[in-house]
């Protein structure tokens, strides 16, 4: 008698959205789903590299004295141009910021991309085509033994010049 009365009372007072059994069952099922999803996400962490094969993005380009004033040198392996102007060195990446092709330097000093026709002026600024931005200015430093070092993964603001 009391057994039939109790649930009636509780249903009137609390109006439960689920019985305890439903709740525990659903909680168990969703815990299993959550555990599976987390395990899969954890497994997907594996293909995300923590060290890149090109982690040694720094390359020695040579002694500053080796480059004449107002000269331009291309380094195909590092994919960059080294410019020596009147007041120092700066470097531009030759990788097109659109879809990663190697841009060509025209006779006037402008750049153009063979893949989708993006165009850049002599300073690497975007002048036409689908690229979202200009060519990357690559960071230049001088190593302790006096060599120019370029780090292709480090971008510096346009117009940054290294006096060396």
């Amino acid at each position, binding site marked *: 008698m009391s057994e039939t009365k109790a649930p009636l009372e509780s249903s009137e007072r609390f109006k439960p959205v689920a019985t305890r059994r439903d709740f525990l069952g659903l909680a168990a099922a969703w815990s299993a789903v959550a555990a599976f999803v987390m395990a899969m996400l954890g497994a997907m962490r594996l293909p995300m590299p923590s060290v890149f094969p090109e982690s040694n993005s720094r390359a020695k380009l040579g002694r500053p004295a080796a480059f004449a004033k107002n000269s331009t040198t291309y380094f195909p392996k590092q994919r960059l141009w080294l410019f020596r102007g009147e007041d120092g060195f700066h470097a531009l990446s030759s990788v097109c910021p659109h879809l*990663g092709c190697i841009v060509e330097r025209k006779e006037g000093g402008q750049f153009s991309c*063979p893949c989708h026709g993006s165009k850049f002026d002599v300073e690497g600024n975007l002048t036409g085509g689908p690229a979202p931005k200009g060519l990357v200015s690559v960071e230049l430093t001088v190593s302790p033994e006096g060599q120019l070092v370029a780090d292709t993964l480090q971008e510096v603001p346009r117009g940054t010049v290294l006096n060396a």
Partner: protein
Amino acid sequence: MTKDDKGSTATVETSEARDKGDSPLREFGANLVSTPREFRDSVVRHGKPTSDRAKSQVVMSNFFLHILPVRIHMHSLKAATTLGLGVATFVLFIILCFTGVLLMVYYKPAVDQAYGSMLDIMNVVPTGRLIRNVHRWSAHAMVACVFLHMARAFYTSAYKKPRQFNWVVGMGLFVLTLALSFTGYLLPWDQLAYWAVTIGANIAQSPREVTDALGVTGVFDVGGVQKELLLGAHMVGQEALIRFYVLHVVVLPVITAILIGVHFWRIRKDGGMVRPAAADAPPVAPVLSAEPAPLKTYGLMGLMKGRTPAVNLELRNTVTAWPNALYVIGAATMVTVLSMLLLGFWFDAPLKEMANPAVPENPAKAPWYFLGLQELVSYSAFMGGVGIPAIVVLGIALVPFLDREKEDAGVWFSGKRGKIVTLYSVLFGTVTVVGMLCFTVKFGWLRDWEATAHVPQIVITAFNPGTVFVALFALWSIVVVKVTRSTRMGAIALFTCFLVGFVILTYFATVHRGPNWDFYWSQSDWPVH
């Protein structure tokens, strides 16, 4: 169940021999003699498929045939119903698995050996050239067949209830087929492979255009994560090659095989091939052949979808799958295998010079089915390479849920009105896309005009000529829905426009784009360099 007479007499003989008290050695001898027959009877448990009952048993008791129904509607077997495209696609998948495993015997997924092993396969390995050619041409053919199969299913309304989910599974298989082709494209490690995949990987990175514009790339860099997952590096190199290899030979084929299983299973569960109501009307063939009553009686029960009980209606205009369906499947299989062998025999799959990360191929053209997208990314990478394909795939996948009209299912183009809408949509799509391409070739795009040369990047990203097409196509299909008062007609209009846009862009990028992605009337006009 139905042992033939000889089998039963043999059993009687041996038991008689035992009763006489003969030596077990004689029984052994008799068993030895009858072993081949016993073995056959253990594999095939029915007699010759001469009666409808035995033909049913052939299909039901064979693992490889049991995906077929026992009886199949005659409409499903007509060439004009399916054009055999689904079977052809499946056969191509099997050819690709078979030739792919053979190629794996010699192929080495290492940057310093991959190209060399390709040269070996082409020049030294016995039959290597033919096997590679067949693999390459079958890959192209599979993409083509998937496209055509999808168009067939669309124009015959095969996506409608209860087949909506199978349409979505089909879209999944479509994307997987493209992914299989794309991952296979890198493996030869030639110039074309290297630069096409460089472009592809950078398209995967292109959501950065959006996150950069919003200034959130630092915390939320989807594009960067996608590219790193794909390449395992910043550039296409050894890491990328091994990843593409694993995806191409294990991950994607396994997922594809599972989805193909689901796709076939659902065809059965959804009531077989879609057919027009007219195909059920008058019985045109004798339903069951006369046969002696079986010793044991069987009840043939079929589950039918429908509201009224109908006795034997499921058998009307059907024939046994053995051998009728097998003839049709066999014919499609032979045509497919033969065409691939002939293609592979006569035409060599291209292999350019070895990949050179310093000098891009110019023009670096993706395989034909991606060239339409490549044309669009030449205006802006994110919208052309990610945004528009995603909208189109999603739009096509949602068609069965937006168009639920039940009339004229199974009829090509849903009848005369649909043919007219298709024709007008071809016209509209052609005018729109050709007009747009002429415009951009003649006048350029946003960055080429004084007024818009310096608009923010987000505008360049979003306002792709492709965005304009898709918007116009959507508008056109809404107009068609309004005029015809039919969502099916609207769906036909949209799908036709997408198809026409794809064909024209593919043609345009294949024929009229040359070095620097400039416009040329033909390849003979390309500058010599």
